[in-house]
């Protein structure tokens, strides 16, 4: 690993860091953007110049110290510069999600008391014009793309170039202005307000100070050995804390180059052209890439398919071990090297992973198959656990200690403790200052001595890795005293392609049970291959062989669960396969396809009864809504199946007695 040289600690704000890089590496690329089909590169020296002019331009527009500047748009260099320029003159940038509708935007703009907005294009200008009546505080709007703006004559609309030109003149007359302004900034000043997406109630504005962001970013840079030779792709929303740390904070600390894709649809093309060394994506994206690869391989000739299968098997066997530096025989190494030439190399090239040194995923559980696929190719994909309130990093998996179902060890400088109710709490340099204009929420989340409630339940495994199991409020207790983490169990079940949906029960019961939905595509193709005839979903779901397969999956999950003393009580003793798919039209799922646990429990009360009374079969009659709105009923006799469980470890037994 290359030696990491962090900028001196007295550079405690981003404008100061920018001046540092402009002096240290003026000719190195700072940010790229693909425009008109060509990667346009801006060096650190150029960026500093742009930001100086923009800062003065914003000042002449009336931005004052402490003002909030809303920023709306896709990842664009000019919008990142706006952040630095605003920070340089003591204003606080407030990035907004660019795809939010006008009404959602109105809330944030109004709540943040933003007087100024810098936006990407006409689309965003239109949204702001639409909401301006509800946000009388918004006084000036600056736009980057002039397209379609010719007929907008409002005097409060300004083109980015005009603002910068104004600033250039100002700087010429006041040559010392910029240096004086940035010298006034301190590490404890608010650097940015990031609004949480607001899936639970109204969005909250998280204030992060320069110290929060700079120190956390620096810790991450130190831990992973990032240097100015690295390169990353900025394609996730600017309003999201991850992008702010990975594409802004860490870039300004380590001095590496960030690239902005041409448009949101071209991300994968651009990624391939660029070959970033540092990459972040939520599990969903890794899953999509893998699916695309697999589908394209299915279309390939049988020779290619055969070679692909053969070498992927070798990768599965040895790739991860080689990556983690564990011992592997010379024969395997040779085969893996051959595979590197024939399959892994070209594949990584197609995906844009050729130069990748470090990839993170976070946000939700990633399927072990997906995770291992990338790692076996030699891509150092790691999981981390973070939140806006922590300036991202709470835990990171250290190199060589990677497991699919943990989120790693505490990040540098972060302390973690597990509260009595199982909730994960943390304290560290990245802990947010407060929620903007919401002291109740602040005191609810942050204790006086700096500990933050995450709302997630978790525990430390024996190797010191943190495991997140569920939202704390969803975690219950089985009657023997053991933890019951429904989502953790359900996710484990859903990683099997045969299982589409699972609903686990066990809170205040003697043991755990589950409803299973089979995946019609996966199980249907299994049936086709094995000459199993079936006429409907219901018939396939009731097939004894299918039940046997599902039982096998559950037993495997039970074995996994038993390995964790904390979760051993979650083992599923009885299950049944539902006769119909859980459906949003029937109110069983939300529109985003999340199970509405309570509703399902009420609707299928008789089935839950059967799971716990020891009955062999359960009769159910359900009303269903067809796609054309008509209603009908489905009747079925469902088989209730017992599953073997591993014995509970002694520790839990003791607690129970």
């Amino acid at each position, binding site marked *: 690993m290359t030696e990491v040289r962090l900028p001196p600690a007295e550079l405690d704000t981003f404008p100061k860091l920018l001046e540092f890089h402009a002096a240290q590496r003026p000719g190195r690329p700072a940010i790229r953007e693909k425009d008109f*089909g060509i990667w346009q590169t801006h060096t650190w020296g150029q960026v500093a110049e742009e930001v100086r002019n923009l800062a003065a331009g914003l000042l002449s527009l009336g931005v004052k110290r402490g003002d909030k500047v809303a920023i709306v748009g896709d990842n664009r260099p000019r919008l990142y510069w706006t952040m630095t320029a605003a920070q340089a003159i003591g204003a606080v940038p407030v990035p907004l999600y660019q795809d939010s509708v006008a009404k959602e935007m109105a809330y944030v703009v109004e709540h943040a008391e933003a007087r100024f907005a810098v936006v990407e294009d006409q689309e965003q200008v239109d949204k702001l014009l639409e909401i*301006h009546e509800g946000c009388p505080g918004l006084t000036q709007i600056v736009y980057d793309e002039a*397209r379609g703006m*010719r*007929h*907008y004559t*409002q005097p*409060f609309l300004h083109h980015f170039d005009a603002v910068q030109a104004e600033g250039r003149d100002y700087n010429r007359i006041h040559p010392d202005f910029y240096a004086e302004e940035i010298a006034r900034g301190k590490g404890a000043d608010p650097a940015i307000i990031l609004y949480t997406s607001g899936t639970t109630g109204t969005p909250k504005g998280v204030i992060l100070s320069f110290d929060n962001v700079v120190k956390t970013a620096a810790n991450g840079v130190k831990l992973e050995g990032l240097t100015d030779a690295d390169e990353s792709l900025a394609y996730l929303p600017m309003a999201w804390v991850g992008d702010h740390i990975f594409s802004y904070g860490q870039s300004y600390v380590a001095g590496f180059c960030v690239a902005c894709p041409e448009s949101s649809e071209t991300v994968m093309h651009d990624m391939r052209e660029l070959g970033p060394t540092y990459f972040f994506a939520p599990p969903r994206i890794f899953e999509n890439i893998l699916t695309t690869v697999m589908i394209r391989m299915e279309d390939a000739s049988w020779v290619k398919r055969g070679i692909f299968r053969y070498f992927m098997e070798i990768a599965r066997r040895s790739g991860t071990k080689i990556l983690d530096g564990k011992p592997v025989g010379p024969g395997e190494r040779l085969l893996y090297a051959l595979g590197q030439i024939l399959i892994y190399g070209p594949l990584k090239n197609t995906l844009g992973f050729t130069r990748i040194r470090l990839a993170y995923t976070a946000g939700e559980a990633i399927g072990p198959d997906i995770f291992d696929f990338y790692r076996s190719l030699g891509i150092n994909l790691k999981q981390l656990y973070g939140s806006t309130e922590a300036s991202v990093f709470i835990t990171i998996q250290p190199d060589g200690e990677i497991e699919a179902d943990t989120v790693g060890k505490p990040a540098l400088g972060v302390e973690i403790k597990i509260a009595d109710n199982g909730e994960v709490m943390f304290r560290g340099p990245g802990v947010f200052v407060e929620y903007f204009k919401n002291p109740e929420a602040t005191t609810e989340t942050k204790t006086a001595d700096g500990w933050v409630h995450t709302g997630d339940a978790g525990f430390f495994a024996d190797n010191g890795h943190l495991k997140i199991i569920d939202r704390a409020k969803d975690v219950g207790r089985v009657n023997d005293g053991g933890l019951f983490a429904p989502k953790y169990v359900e996710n484990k079940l859903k990683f099997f392609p045969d299982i589409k949906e699972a609903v686990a029960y066990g809170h205040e019961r003697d043991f755990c049970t589950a409803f299973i939905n089979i995946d019609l595509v996966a199980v249907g193709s299994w049936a086709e291959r094995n000459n199993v005839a079936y006429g409907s979903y219901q018939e396939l779901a009731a097939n004894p062989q299918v039940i046997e397969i599902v039982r096998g999956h559950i037993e495997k999950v039970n074995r996994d669960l038993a390995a964790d003393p904390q979760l051993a009580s979650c083992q599923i003793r009885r299950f049944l396969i539902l006769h119909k798919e859980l459906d949003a039209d029937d109110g069983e799922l939300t529109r985003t396809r999340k199970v509405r646990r309570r509703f399902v429990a009420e609707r299928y009360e008789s089935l839950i009864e059967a799971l716990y009374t020891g009955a062999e079969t359960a009769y159910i009659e359900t009303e269903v809504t067809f796609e054309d709105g008509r209603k009908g009923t489905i009747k079925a006799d469902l088989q209730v199946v017992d599953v073997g469980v591993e014995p509970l470890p002694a520790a839990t037994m003791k607690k129970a007695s």
Partner: protein
Amino acid sequence: MVETLASEGVAEHQSAPRKKIGETLLRADNITLAFGGVKALTDISFEVREHEILAIIGPNGAGKTSMLNVINGFYHPQQGRIMYLGAERRAMRPHLAARQGIARTFQNVALFKGMSTLDNIMTGRVLKMKSNIFQQAIFWGANQREEIAHREVVEKIIDFLEIEAIRKTPVGRLPYGLQKRVELARALAMEPKLLLLDEPMAGMNVEEKEDMCRFILDVNDEFGTTIALIEHDMGVVMDISDRVVVLDYGRKLADGTPDEVRANQDVIDAYLGVSH
């Protein structure tokens, strides 16, 4: 210093200045076109003015596409004349019409299916290229600079029509709506004075239609291109055109602003149908 949002209403946005419609760009005088004994067009006169969007509408077989073909020189009318840029146009071939700045798209997409989007649009620049095939094969010096200049124009159009993601995709693999957009891009690459669009929205879903409408309006607005289009979707026609010409059985029924046409009794009977 500057006036602020609070003091300024949004109302001004709506009353933004409309584009200027200029002089007559093309005039058809008493056009009659017959195939043997079948009269496709009978005594049709109308004009296309600079910077406007003119829609030609009419039921099936009314002679709309024939009219477009007459304008771009593919058909030669037996009677009547076409005045273009103030001069009478002689019987000519379509490529000469193209040289004079008339570009078009087709009812059934007519692209090179095996070529990429980018290459398809580059073909729109062929008429503007000066170098010959041998110079292009060597690709050096002036020729290289020329290619780069053309590529720049094409990239601006790609950016304008938001088709960056399919730049390198073979056109045959694209969905229909996008193929239509590529065809529009190729026509724009000619930097035409007059753009003829033959059913630009046929077979599209609502979202694709909305996109296409926006692009047509943007092209008209940003480049000042005069547009004559044939379209079946009445909503679209009434929304985006400045003037409408209505044909029926090869004759002109009406000619005027959308509102005038909508109120015309002949048009209602022939095309829009009797309202219930």
